[in-house]
């Protein structure tokens, strides 16, 4: 007798719980159990799986001069005699979409071999007319060591980047 009563009470409690669940969430126990995402009345819907990935490639340092889309009269002023000696540590002049009369002249004498030791990459992209990159010698080596990349993109006319001499640094 007591056992039957317990059974009835148990069933009643379960029914109350289910009713409460439906009232609170608006979902039937079945839909909760399925755990499905509900989407309605959209024109389109897409579920995309996100899959963990690791890109293992390690960066290898740039080692080539790379000139892209250079227009007529563009002048890359790394004078041949100086590039091999003085400019040895400037490893990657990269110019892209350089417009007319643009001039990159970072290796003007004297002495950039010693001074530009820390600069491993000079990169100008979409440089417009009259843009100039001036690495002022002879003091760059002390100042710019550790500065691994100088990157200019979409530089407009009369833009100027200066690595200032030592007197400004202290």
């Amino acid at each position, binding site marked *: 007798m007591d056992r039957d009563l317990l059974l009835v009470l148990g069933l009643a409690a379960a029914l109350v719980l289910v009713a409460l669940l439906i009232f609170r969430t*608006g*979902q039937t126990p079945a839909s*909760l159990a399925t*755990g*499905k*995402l*509900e*989407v*309605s*009345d*959209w*024109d*389109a*819907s*897409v*579920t*995309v*799986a*996100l*899959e963990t*990935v*690791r*890109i*293992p*490639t*390690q*960066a*290898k*340092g*740039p080692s*080539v001069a*790379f000139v*892209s889309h250079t227009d007529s009269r563009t002048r890359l002023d790394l004078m041949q005699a100086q590039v091999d000696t003085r400019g040895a540590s400037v490893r990657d002049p*990269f110019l*892209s979409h350089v417009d007319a009369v643009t001039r990159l002249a970072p290796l003007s004498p004297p002495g950039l071999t010693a001074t530009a030791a820390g600069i491993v990459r000079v*990169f100008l992209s*979409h440089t417009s007319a009259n843009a100039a990159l001036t690495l002022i010698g002879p003091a760059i080596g002390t*100042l710019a*060591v*550790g*500065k*691994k*990349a100088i*990157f*200019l*993109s*979409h*530089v*407009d*006319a*009369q*833009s*100027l*980047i*200066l*690595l*200032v001499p030592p007197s*400004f*640094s*202290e």
Partner: protein
Amino acid sequence: MKYTLLVSFALVCFVGEGLAQVNLVAPEGAPAFPSSAAGISAYVKVDRPIRIDEALAAVFHRIVDVGDNYIIGTVEVKNFVSTVYPHVYVDAEGWIVAFLLASEPAALIMHWSGDHNNPTPTIKTTLEIALETVAAVARVPVSKPSFFDFSNPMANAMLILLRVLPAPDTKVMYVKFPGAFEVFTFSYFHYGCNYDCCRYDPDRFETVFKFNGQVMNRLAGTETLSKTVNTLPSREFEVNKLHEFELSYSYSCCENGSAGLAIVIVYRAP
């Protein structure tokens, strides 16, 4: 003597996307792909080496970094609503990854199809288009890319929802996530436009996006296209609750425009 290294840059009239941006440049020997700066990404690994050369560089709208064995830049992807510039990473080992920055709303992946008067309810992503564009120039065949969100590595799924209104109307849409789900980001791309309508009485349109009855974004204008791409706090999107999205569109004159709403939700399903 204390040796202080100080480099000062004087940048006069420096315009554009330059040094002040997120650092995507990899030091030599470090992972070439900037995973800490990347957000939603579409990627493939092709089974052949890719040449990092000038021809490949030309596909980029802007080159961010280049090394011996990789290149990173932005690629222009145009549709009738907007022009977006996803980043694309390519390396010599065959990886091509098109990605949004972690700071960019994930809804920027929505590539609107059709035209301003007849938007097509088709979901295609700007990342897929950027990736396919670069792969074509690199002359490598690519299969359908996989996706990953580097800024939410625990997320395992992304839901993209789209509603377009090619004529004045109000539509209500619903979404409900089960309680066991966890939402990481919730962003939207909302646009509205009307063009070339009344010669002497320029047309004015209005489109409103409501979320759970609250106005989230209102766009209006005359003979133009307006858009908003934004990320909402993920706490706004409670799980185990039916959420209501409403999109309305109206104009004052004759018909030559549309409105659209794309929702992107990054989440983890059990």
